[in-house]
């Protein structure tokens, strides 16, 4: 209850505002975990790059972060729709399993790391290892991604509207990458494959969900050659 009273409730049971310049992060996260009681929208003012904003939320609530967020914004999210009106630090949406996170600016390293589900949209660029170890999440990056994106990606879809750096899709499992721009180099076991009608349909739906207007036909599909799936003495570890 204490945290509920500290939250500036705009309209009871509908919206609440937390100002991280004056309220500790703990109050915000506790409120999101325990005291939502019908609150449908939460605004976070002055995030000022704070780490771990809105982590572990498990409720259908809209969270708007008015500024830049630090590490792990929206980490392990379930159900919530989180919008970051700024840039984010490493691991935005790491481990999330459902819901959506929308970064209006740029994202640092390891965006969507190891996430099992939901949708992560980054309007700007994403840094190194975007989608590392992803396990079912859909990630749409409006700009470009850094080196080793989708490293060991297991499942889900990574859409890159811009370019990709070195080692794209290294040691890929069953995740699929769609890339519109150039790829500096593919990682071990990743290669380009023809786009099927099913790819175009799936990609079109994802772009639409992400609010991007590119033509899905202008993308290329990158997937695993599955050459590393089995231990192989003849591989000579040339990867």
């Amino acid at each position, binding site marked *: 209850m204490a945290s509920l009273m500290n939250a500036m409730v705009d309209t009871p049971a509908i919206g609440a505002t937390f100002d991280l310049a004056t309220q500790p*992060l*703990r109050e915000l*996260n*506790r409120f999101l*975990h*325990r005291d939502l009681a019908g609150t449908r929208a939460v605004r976070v003012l002055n995030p000022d790059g704070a*780490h*771990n904003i809105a*982590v*572990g939320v*498990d409720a259908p609530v809209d969270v708007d972060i008015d500024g830049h967020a*630090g*590490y*792990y914004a929206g*980490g*392990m*999210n*379930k159900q919530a729709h989180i919008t970051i009106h700024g840039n984010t630090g*490493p*691991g935005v949406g*790491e*481990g999330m*399993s459902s819901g959506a996170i929308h970064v209006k600016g740029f994202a640092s390293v*390891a965006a969507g*790391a*190891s996430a*099992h589900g939901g949708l992560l949209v980054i309007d700007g660029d994403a840094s190194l*290892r975007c989608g*590392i*170890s992803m*396990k*079912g999440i859909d990630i749409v990056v409006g700009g470009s991604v850094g080196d080793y994106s989708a*490293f*060991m990606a*297991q*499942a889900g879809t990574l859409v890159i509207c811009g370019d990709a750096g070195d080692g794209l899709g290294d040691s890929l*499992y*069953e995740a699929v990458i769609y890339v519109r721009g150039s790829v500096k180099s593919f990682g071990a076991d990743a290669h380009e494959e023809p786009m099927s009608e099913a790819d175009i349909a799936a990609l079109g739906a994802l772009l639409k969900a992400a609010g991007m207007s590119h033509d899905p036909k202008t993308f290329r599909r990158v997937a695993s050659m599955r050459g590393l*799936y*089995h*231990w192989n*003495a*003849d591989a*000579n570890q040339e990867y």
Partner: protein
Amino acid sequence: MNKPVEFHKCMQLEESWGYDRKTLDYIHNASAHGLYEIRGLGAKRRVPHFDDLVFLGASLSRYALEGYRERCDTRTVLGTRFASKPIELAIPITIAGMSFGALSANVKEALGRAATDMGTSTTTGDGGMTREERQSSKTLIYQCLPSRYGFNPDDVRRADAIEVVIGQGAKPGGGGMLLGQKVNPRVAKMRTLPEGVDQRSACRHPDWTGPDDLTIKIQELREITDWEKPIYVKVGATRTLHDVKLAVHAGADVIVVDGMQGGTAATQTVFIEHVGIPTLAAVRQAVQALEELNMKDTVQLIVSGGIRTGADVAKALAMGADAVAIGQGVLMALGCNHDSYFQNGAQHSAVEDYAALGTAPGYCHHCHTGKCPVGVTTQDAVLEQRLDPAVGARHVRNYLKTLNMELTTIARACGKQDVHHLEREDLVALTVEAAAMAGQPLAGTDWVPGR
């Protein structure tokens, strides 16, 4: 007349020390296959260990407690630094993290039941949390590993503590392995992998690198769990003094240090035998780190890697550990390397199945094959039936009970009313190496090498 003994002939056959039959076998295998050996369990070589220490029981200068009449507490509390709900255990002996995938679901259930009966905790592994182990374990530690297989927010909330695994004693610096024969449909689904792949997990966490990042990662886990659950950090024993200090700075409630004798389900032999330091050396460094930071008793220490007996537990505690974790020992209690298994009310020989793997009871390290002759480390539908969870639970319970009785026997003999009162002053070393590594005086002297 008797025939003369023909040993002059054997005498001429001199085996090389550097190129003995074991080494020749290794070279011949390498040249035939072009691939290193992968196996299970831990280091087989002899390293300085707890066996090289003995207790100074009570005598004239100390007085002992009566074995069965006087109280000797074993209660153990872990995670008192930041967590609002620390882990309370009846005994200081816990079950180490081992994955579902490496172990069968039956085994996970047996471990949970035994741990619950004994009032201690069990730990998940590199494959997520199974329904069976959550249901059967009163206190379950949930590992957060580099692979993050099956690591999800619901299970984070279901767990009693989170253990961030940086490394493992059998292979500090390496990721997990699970060969395709063990990646059956259920294991594959839990790990989001295609069935039957030879799974090689990452060796670094996907979303942080280095101790400063780890600090933020730990904060994230605390925020997600509303600061209720203890956060453990597990390191494989290497530069233990520094690693423990960094883990304390990063905000760990509990540090788990796993020495090189610790087990694995599948790792390169070269890694198992040649990377990492013995548990004995690691405990001393870990305790030193906590003492130098003035964090002893604020941050708790769990020691693992080759803990087999009540004496090992007592020595780890006397050196400054708060608890121990056991992996291989409990698997052996379940029947690992036993010549037979118990199924449908009768004992059956497993010797032929060991032979089919090219080994024999007492020598097996074939967990990686998934064809465990006694049904412990398998995902095979037929083999896993060889381990009945109820029977397994009874054996593990008996084993833990024995260890705990041995521990209190030693503690009473040293005059302690609480096993946590065992102290370094109670221990001396039998070898110069052990004295140096453990920082304990050589028996009968006051000499600690290096001091």
